[in-house]
């Protein structure tokens, strides 16, 4: 009994283990380092096991987002539509951009661009804050941290799917009939979602380490928006610029996904038999696939590399 009241003895290994150092003891009983980063394959498995959480978290966030607003979920559609209205007024009517398009198609071209660019823009912005805004969650519970940026991309996708309904109405109202190219909307959106997930993962790791980046992001995104030709056609201008600028404009992922979806929604805009039409840069599907796969793989590995460091103050 007297040994029990010795303060240190409760920690010390007894019997056959007596005299082992803590590390030897841990090794003998196969204890693992707490919070260690799992291998890439094991990590993917853990992440897959959490897919229901990711989905539930994304849906819950989406529902919770507008509970204070009287119009509720309607704002998800109204906000981008208001954006479209302003852009149409400034770029379409005042700056006469719509003259370079087949009659009545500029509005459809513009709306597709605004919604699609916003999809990527939101992915970048929410990815940057995915870790730093959810430190409480990260410090309380165990789950693969990639769940958070992925959940935020799922939120953006759910919002986009709601917007797509509005987009379809806009396109039909512009007098563009549905065609076979509408089938391309699904694969194009899938590619963009994959690309967005990758970029969101990259931004999440950067944002977790350097919180200053979130101040810079709105400026960067605005610059990217103007350089990607969301409300005016880059293709009309590009032939006057140096070759390397032309190449950059051709492979710019934001333009690529906007081109793919604009063509899918309204192929008439690119119809070469019309007197006024837009031209489509070559190899857009190839670039779209390459960006999606490349950025997703890079982003996933890049994020996983710092898995055990997220949540540190």
């Amino acid at each position: 009994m007297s040994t029990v009241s010795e303060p240190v003895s409760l920690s010390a290994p007894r019997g056959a283990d007596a005299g082992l150092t803590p590390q030897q003891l841990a090794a003998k009983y196969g204890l693992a380092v707490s919070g260690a980063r799992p291998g890439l394959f094991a990590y993917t498995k853990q992440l897959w096991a959490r897919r229901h959480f990711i989905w539930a978290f994304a849906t819950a966030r989406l529902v919770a987002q507008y509970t204070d607003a009287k119009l509720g979920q309607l704002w998800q559609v109204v906000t981008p539509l208001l954006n479209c209205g302003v852009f149409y007024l400034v770029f379409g009517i005042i700056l006469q951009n719509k003259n370079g398009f087949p009659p009545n198609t500029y509005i459809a071209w513009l709306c597709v661009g605004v919604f699609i660019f916003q999809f990527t823009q939101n992915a970048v912005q929410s990815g940057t804050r995915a870790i730093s805004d959810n430190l409480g969650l990260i410090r309380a519970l165990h789950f693969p941290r990639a769940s958070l940026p992925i959940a935020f991309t799922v939120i953006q996708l759910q919002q986009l799917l709601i917007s797509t309904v509005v987009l379809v109405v806009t396109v039909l109202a512009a007098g563009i009939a549905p065609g076979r190219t509408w089938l391309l909307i699904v694969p194009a959106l899938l590619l963009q979602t994959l690309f967005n997930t990758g970029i969101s993962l990259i931004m999440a790791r950067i944002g977790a380490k350097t919180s200053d980046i979130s101040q810079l992001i709105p400026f960067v995104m605005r610059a990217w928006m103007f350089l990607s030709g969301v409300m005016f056609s880059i293709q009309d201008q590009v032939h006057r610029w140096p070759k390397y600028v032309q190449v950059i404009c051709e492979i710019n992922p934001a333009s690529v996904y906007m081109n793919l979806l604009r063509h899918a929604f309204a192929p008439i805009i690119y119809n070469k038999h019309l007197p006024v039409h837009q031209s489509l840069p070559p190899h857009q599907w190839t670039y779209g696939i390459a960006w999606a796969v490349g950025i997703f793989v890079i982003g996933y590995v890049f994020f996983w590399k710092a898995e055990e460091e997220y949540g540190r103050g």
Partner: protein
Amino acid sequence: MADTDLSKQDAVTDTVVAREPTVVVDDVHIVYRVHGAGSGKGSATSALSRIISRKRASGVREVHAVKGISFTAYKGEAIGLIGSNGSGKSTMLAAIAGLLPTEKGGIYTNGQPSLLGVNAALMNELSGERNVVLGCLAMGMSPAQVRARYQEIVEFSGINDKGDFISLPMRTYSSGMGARLRFSIAAAKTHDVLLIDEALATGDQAFQQRSKKRIEELRGEAGTVFLVSHDNNSIREVCERTIWIEAGELVMDGPTEEVVGRYERGERP
């Protein structure tokens, strides 16, 4: 003859038989880095000059929260962690859970230790029922497990005792109701190594009784339990071993009666 000999031998070696360790904490140091806590001027020009001159340290302060703590916990133990505010108890718990990286030293565990608590995963704007599902999924349960446990959780919380409150948003709950639901969700899952941070004193008298019973059950199912609390009575009730931490250092590690007694009298060994 041989039988009696063996049983005698057993009785002798029983007290010194090797125990199975579940958590090994080996000389652990934990350092927090706090941004923007520097005493330097906060003006834009000084910030700019700091960036240009690459003098990073002035805005970042390091807090050495845990300084070289070592202990080993074994299967079947319930261990209390005591110490004054800011002594590093909760930090230690978070580190055992693998939620805080260690600066130096290692923490080795059997399975994945989990903190009892889902508060951070819940959303006040959502209804109680959605929060039950979300919280369970956040703890790593499968949708089938959530469905199986759902009714049990709602009944345990007693939210629906006075009408259908579970379908209302959680922000409409009283603070006691919210705490009860949060505890009920958190206690729905069993863990190998369970870490409890002052969760015992929530809700009304009846609920406290129920939650104490539930923690006893969890203790039975878990391999090892750690409890951080300022309520020395709940430490005495739950734990047979207690570790006293002060200013990030281990002061005392021993049987609860002895350690808590000396802690209350303020006698540092």
